[in-house]
C-alpha cells in the first residue's frame, strides 16, 4: 500500500493505492490522523489505484469519517472509487454513508 497526502488550500487530498488490509490499515489511519491533528477536517480520499480494501480499512475510514463530521467541522469524501471497491462499500452498507465523486477535482470542489 502507498499513501500520499497533499495539503491544498482548503482541503487535504490523500491518494491511497495498492492493498489496504489488516497489516497496512494502520498506515492509512496514521495519515488521516496526522491531517486531523492539524485541525484540518475536510479530506478527499482518492482511491484510483486501490486494488483491495478489507474490513480493517473500512473501519479506519468510518472512524475517520465520524471524527471529521463531528460538530459539522468537515467530511471525508471519496473520489475515483474502482468498481471492485465500490462493491465492497455496498456490501458493507457504506456506499450511502460516504459522499462519492467521479474525480478528485469534483470531490475537492464539493467542499
Amino acid at each position, binding site marked *: 500500500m502507498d499513501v500520499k497526502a497533499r495539503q491544498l488550500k482548503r482541503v487535504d487530498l490523500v491518494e491511497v493505492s495498492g*492493498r489496504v*488490509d*489488516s*497489516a497496512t490499515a494502520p498506515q492509512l489511519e496514521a495519515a488521516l490522523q496526522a491531517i486531523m491533528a492539524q485541525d484540518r477536517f475536510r479530506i478527499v480520499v482518492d482511491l484510483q489505484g486501490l486494488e*483491495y480494501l*478489507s*474490513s*480493517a480499512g*473500512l*473501519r479506519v475510514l*468510518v*472512524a475517520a*469519517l*465520524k471524527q471529521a*463530521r463531528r460538530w459539522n467541522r468537515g467530511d471525508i469524501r471519496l473520489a475515483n472509487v474502482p468498481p*471492485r471497491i465500490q462493491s*465492497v462499500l455496498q*456490501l*458493507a*452498507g457504506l456506499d450511502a*454513508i460516504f459522499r462519492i465523486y467521479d474525480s478528485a477535482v469534483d470531490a475537492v470542489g464539493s467542499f
Partner: protein
Amino acid sequence: MPERYEITVPSDLANLACIAEFVTHAALRLGLSEQQAFEVQMATDEACANVMEHAYGPGVAGSLSIACELEGDDLVVTIRDRGRPFDAKRVPPPDLTRPLADRRVGGLGLHFMHKLMDRVVFHHDAETGNELRMYKRRSP
C-alpha cells in the same frame, strides 16, 4: 490426483498479502472467474486476519495453513490453526442500516465471509485445532 494447493505461513499480518496472492492464483487455476477469485481472496483475507488477530493474537507465535481444492463444482478453502477456538455465534451481525453515529465499527469481516462465499463452516477439535471451510460454487 486431484489438484490441491496448500501453504503454511506464520501468524503475522505481514503475510496477508502473500496469502492473497496464493489464493487468487489457486482459484484461477481451479477454474474460477476473475471476479470470483477476488471474492474468494477477500473472504480468505478476512478469515486469516481474524485468526492472526483473535485466535492467536498480537505477538503470539503460531502458524496457519490455507488449502484450496475442488469438491464437485465447489472451490473449497480450508483454513487451519491452533489458536483459541472461535465461536461465530457470539459475533452479532452488523446492522448495516443504522445511522453512522450508531454504527458499531466491527463484525464486518465475518459478514463479508458469509456474503462472498456460498457456505462457511467453523469446526473446533481439541486434538487438531480450528478448521474453517468456505465453499464457492464455480459459475458454469
